[in-house]
């Protein structure tokens, strides 16, 4: 299984990762090798088996009581923010 430069560019854009010119061939090579490894899965007959989404069988989602347990701590939480104003997180202008 081999990927080309264009595949890598598309994936990187979908994943929102800027790649440098130097990086692109490395990822073409790296992902091609990984997908080569992944191709081994074809050896397994999985026609009789369901996909496994969780490692423990028979577990079910627990439900939380509908109660407000949180208070306003935006000042603390925004200490890590690159840019805030008037309590808002700022990003470059979004045009709709």
């Amino acid at each position: 299984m081999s990927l080309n430069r264009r595949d890598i560019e598309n994936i990187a854009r979908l994943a929102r990762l800027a790649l440098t010119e130097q990086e692109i061939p490395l990822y073409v090579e790296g992902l091609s090798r990984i997908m080569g490894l992944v191709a081994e899965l074809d050896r397994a007959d999985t026609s009789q088996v369901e996909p496994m989404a969780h490692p423990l069988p028979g577990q079910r989602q627990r439900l939380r009581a509908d109660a407000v347990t949180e208070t306003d701590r935006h000042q603390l939480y925004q200490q890590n923010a690159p840019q805030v104003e008037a309590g808002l997180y700022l990003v470059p202008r979004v045009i709709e």
Partner: protein
Amino acid sequence: MQWETVIGLEIHAQLLTSSKIFSGSATAYGAPPNSQANLVDLAYPGVLPVLNAEAVRMAVKFGLAVNARVTRRSIFARKNYFYPDLPKGYQISQYELPIVSGGAVDVLLDDGSVKRIDITRAHLEEDAGKSLHEGLAGQTGVDLNRAGTPLIEIVSEPAMRSAKQAVAYLKKIHTLVRYLQICDGNMQEGSFRCDANVSVRPRGTEKLGTRAEIKNLNSFRFVEKAINYEVARQIELLEGGGRVVQETRLYDADRGETRSMRSKEEANDYRYFPDPDLLPVEIDQLYIDTVCASLPELPDQKAQRLRKDYDLSAYDAGVLTASAELADYFETVIEKAAAGFPATALSPKLAANTVIGELSGLLNRDGVEINDSRIAPAALAKLLVRVADNTISGKIAKEVLEAMWDEGKDADAIIEARGWRQITDESAIEAAIDAVIAANPSQLAQYRSGKDKLFGFFVGQVMKATQGKANPARLNELLKKKLGG
């Protein structure tokens, strides 16, 4: 060519829980920016979602109310895309196994016919935050208070054939979620909103045309306008030899048009997969039975009962039951009248007309909800009793109602203070008739020579003379006798 419009709606209803779907943050509207966004809502590293029981119960309630299948084992999935109002970079939603599938509602159309609209599915998901663009020096501000508010997305089949049908369906769902008390239905605040998938096809063909998805529809009026605009646009495009592009379009209410959303232009590949942080939601029969037992009387059932119990028309019953509160108000009026004035038979039709007509007019005029009406059901009952027992005429009743609304006084007090008590005393009415006849000899002559239409003139004159207080039935009777000579 004749075109047929095909519309499907995706309705987003915010669920009326106290806390968010996956965190303990409050969901109140209008709080200061990010004051209701905690670690989970902000997608801080390391945090995990835990599902709100009430959100599940509300979704099941909806499913049962539309006769849908409640999925015994539903799965949360991640919908992956980047946007500043989506903190995790994915929305937790349901994809392959939604909590509710199938179901239908019946919608009363303008021509009196009933159309069944099938529902494809309804799934639980989390709302996104909000982006604000004003006054931030060319930047966008992100408020994540809304992020994580529980939603059910109700997806219809492409079953509607006109904007009016779409609105009727939307109103029906709107009524339903409010009956169920799972959504406040506030479209202005965005707690009830919809996207419309609109396409056209040559009449008589089967294959669906290419659709456009219109976003940002936050009022019934806009839904109708946007769909009509979009249908016209698509037809014009097709008739001009062009073709419709599958895309997301935004309704611009100021311009009354839809336009392509450039920011969503990139072909989306959402890479759905089951959310490993959440386990399957299992719902058993006992749970379903318990929720089922808690369902209130639903709009259709209520309308049917009102028609039967009070002999109302389908239209009146439909209008009254558009909100549970309005129907409750109506029934309380009847109840209060029966309890307070057992001797007087109140006409349910009159009560319905007053509630739907004059009272609703006053509510709308002053922007008041029925539950906050300035006229309590007992007060209205008394007023209507005064019509029934001939204390006042129906016409005067309208004025009394308005006075009650404006002054907050009791019906009897207003009637007495203004001397609006109806004249039923025959001698008084006769005296008034005699005076009118005496004052209008030429009209009398004309009437007697066959100009029947002048009867109305005499009624008017007598009413004027009695300041509208003459009992109309008596007046008619006596006037006929006297004019006949």
